[in-house]
């Protein structure tokens, strides 16, 4: 990428701010290519149980360790001789059959403390140790993108650490901002001129609000009334919302000034009690996740071919069922890599098995893959971030962690 390229991007941004149509400005295909590749990172907060999301039903120790929360092999959606997907992940399975979804079943961050908050900090900051840096690795990846800074968007009412940092990113959450006095934004922009927190946030928020209108075109409103009552009604309603969020995010990404990197958080994975098996608490979260990914896939249309989605969690859960029909904090868990840009292949990383001697500290899935290596592979081969920047800036002091190659 060249300097001209960088200037062109700035010009595009300026054009957007002035309300100019990009088509009017014309230009070579290079600039389009620059912003074409997309990355979506979905954080499953609360420690997603990898052994239920991507159950190793062919592992001889699986059923015994898991007892009544084991996913029966005849109900799981088969991937290979060992692995399957939870039956709630029907859309992900359809993608997997087309070589557009793979799993990394024994992944972990470098953190081993089994604390949600410490592990999320390490995962999102990209540091080798807890509270090692105050910015998120995706923010630093945006700064290191070839051809100038990329754009980021986080979905949700609060800003996640993973995208926080010096590059001002956008955020969006469902719910209209509403009409108001047209003078107020300008008055506040003046009052916020010297305010490092509120100034950039307001400017970016107003810009995103304008994009949201276009992004939501064609997104069907969730049919809350048509779902019936009870827990299953709420679950179906949640799926409708998730699908709508996925489609709207795709709508942002398809726009010319749309984000290069998006982060979405899905919480509710901390299943200490009664997590269920084919049905239940965890199955409902997986239905939500599947609907979100389906919405993204459908909404992106042709742009799916240029997209990679990574689903990761802060750590896994105990290999054994606990005393209350759930699982406690563990170590290795599963990660998903999806997208039209993906190369087909089997599982990512090695499967350590669930043999008693293979379990980490006698209780957890032993991680064989550092999640930073997974992200490095995607950021290098898909987003074009160079290795030196990955080793030094994006994931500090991580030269020893090799990028996972061959994913795209």
């Amino acid at each position, binding site marked *: 990428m060249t300097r001209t390229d960088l200037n062109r991007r700035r010009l595009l941004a300026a054009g957007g701010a002035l309300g100019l149509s990009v088509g009017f400005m014309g230009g070579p295909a290079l600039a389009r290519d620059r912003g074409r590749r997309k990355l979506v990172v979905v954080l499953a907060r609360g420690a997603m149980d990898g052994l239920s999301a991507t159950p190793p039903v062919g592992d001889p120790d699986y059923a015994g360790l898991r007892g009544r929360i084991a996913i029966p092999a005849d109900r799981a959606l088969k991937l290979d001789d060992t692995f399957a997907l939870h039956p709630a992940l029907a859309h992900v399975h359809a993608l997997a059959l087309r070589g557009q979804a793979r799993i990394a079943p024994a992944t972990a961050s470098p953190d081993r403390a089994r604390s949600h908050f410490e592990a999320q900090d390490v995962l999102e900051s990209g540091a080798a140790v807890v509270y090692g840096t105050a910015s998120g690795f995706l923010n630093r990846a945006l700064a290191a993108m070839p051809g100038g800074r990329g754009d980021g968007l986080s979905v949700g009412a609060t800003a996640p650490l993973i995208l926080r940092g010096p590059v001002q990113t956008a955020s969006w959450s469902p719910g209209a901002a509403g009409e108001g006095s047209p003078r107020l934004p300008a008055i506040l922009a003046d009052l916020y001129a010297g305010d490092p927190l509120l100034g950039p946030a307001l400017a970016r928020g107003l810009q995103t609000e304008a994009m949201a209108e276009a992004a939501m075109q064609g997104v069907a409103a969730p049919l809350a009334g048509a779902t019936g009552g009870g827990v299953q009604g709420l679950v179906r309603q949640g799926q409708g919302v998730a699908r709508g969020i996925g489609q709207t995010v795709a709508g942002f990404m398809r726009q010319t000034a749309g984000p290069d990197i998006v982060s979405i958080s899905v919480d509710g994975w901390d299943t200490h009690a009664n997590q269920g098996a084919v049905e239940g608490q965890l199955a409902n979260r997986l239905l939500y996740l599947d609907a979100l990914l389906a919405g993204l896939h459908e909404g992106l249309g042709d742009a799916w071919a240029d997209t990679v989605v990574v689903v990761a969690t802060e750590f896994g859960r105990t290999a054994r069922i606990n*005393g209350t029909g759930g699982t406690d904090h563990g170590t290795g868990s599963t990660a998903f890599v999806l997208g039209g840009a993906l190369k087909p292949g089997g599982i990512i990383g090695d499967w350590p098995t669930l043999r008693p001697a293979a379990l980490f500290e006698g209780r957890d899935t032993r991680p064989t893959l550092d999640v930073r290596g997974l992200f490095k592979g995607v950021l290098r081969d898909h987003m074009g971030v160079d290795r030196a920047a990955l080793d030094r800036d994006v994931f500090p002091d991580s030269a020893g962690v090799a990028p996972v190659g061959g994913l795209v």
Partner: protein
Amino acid sequence: MASPSDSLHAAIAVTRFGLGARPGELAAVARDPRGWLLDQIRAGGADQPQAAPESAAKRLQDFRVYRMDRREARRAEAGETPPDRDPVRIAARMIREGPAVDFLARARLAATTAAGFRERWALFWANHFTVSGVKLVTATVAGPFEQEAIRPHVFGRFADLLTSATMHPGMLLYLDQAQSAGPDSQAAQVLKRPPRAAERIGLGGGLNENLAREILELHTVGVAAGYSQADVTELARALTGWSIGGPREAEDRQGRFVFRPATHQPGARTVMGRIYADDGALQAGAILKDLAAHPATARHLAHKIARHFTADDPSPALVGRLEAAWTGSGGDLAVVARALVEAPEAWQPAPAKFKTPYEFLVSSWRAIGGQPAAIEHLAPPLTALGQRPFSPPSPKGWDDLAPTWAAPDAVVKRLAWAQQFSAAVAGELDTDAVASGALGARLSPAVRTAIARAESREEALSILLMSPEFQRR
């Protein structure tokens, strides 16, 4: 007439330590800002939002009745009862309404209290010992938990607050303690005999370490204290037997803390290097007492208090003062609160804390001398801004850092809410007076001018609420 420095101190006392100024409050406080704060510290604890609230025990009994009804209704043929007469729907609505009543009462207390520091102090501790309504059953008891387990103890000994929070049914349910059983307890042995009997009667018959981990990590010593997985498991074993009375038990046990000797893991336990003899329910109590007194707990909480009240990255000198007050008093929270008020570092003129959505809404009502009249005034905007009533996303509670709350989308949504609020309330307000009354010496010339130049009262009030100084404390 108060001196300029008293005016500034009054604004700091009421906005930073308290929940924002109501009309006339700054002038009254300016006579003695420190004294005004110190007078709010009292042995009786915080104010109660409701004089005669429903208890957690009552709510849990109602919830159990609702669950049984629901099960029966599922068994019966569906579709025979019209939806508006369906007893299950009625019960479900009651369960939703309880938390709404609790939350509204709490917000009205915050909007009207003359002791804003006392209320902020209570909210800090309620958040420290989070019981989130993300599960239906805990949603019904989040309010009672605060009234019963937190508010009476916020100016007492930390050890007592810790014990009361840990023993409360709200916490036992939220962090899955109620069902946890020792693997070698009598109950587990009996349940193991006919295979899968535990499953049939809906009991796990085993250990759950969720509460134990969060006590160590969040409530007491903190993750930096260097405890191990073995410490977590040992504390979880000691806690077995701490449970809640069920529907078939005596009336005075239902929905209340009970100790079940039959599910308690027998034997001595070792936590953070100390050995605790098996003493039934008292074993975990003794561990909690030692954790409360641990130096790492003093350090952890001193930092957290300083961060909440003064700055995301608080002054080490302030943290040191609070830690010394904590250690010197054996964790007397009244002494710690006094040390905070008396610390010069807490009175830095520049407001460093960005208000959470709840603080923003409450201080807006206070500024106009009003209060919310219905849950609809609170739940939708708080949810849109990321702070759904009684529903922190995790046991860690609501985050306390500016970058979390000042996301671009959130700032735009704050603006949208400020405009709606102003349209509804600005009416006949003297907005210049509202601005002076709300911020006093902290009102900047630029914002004062913008308010004076506004083309309507609605616009003027929106500018005040969205001003950099009103968004912070």
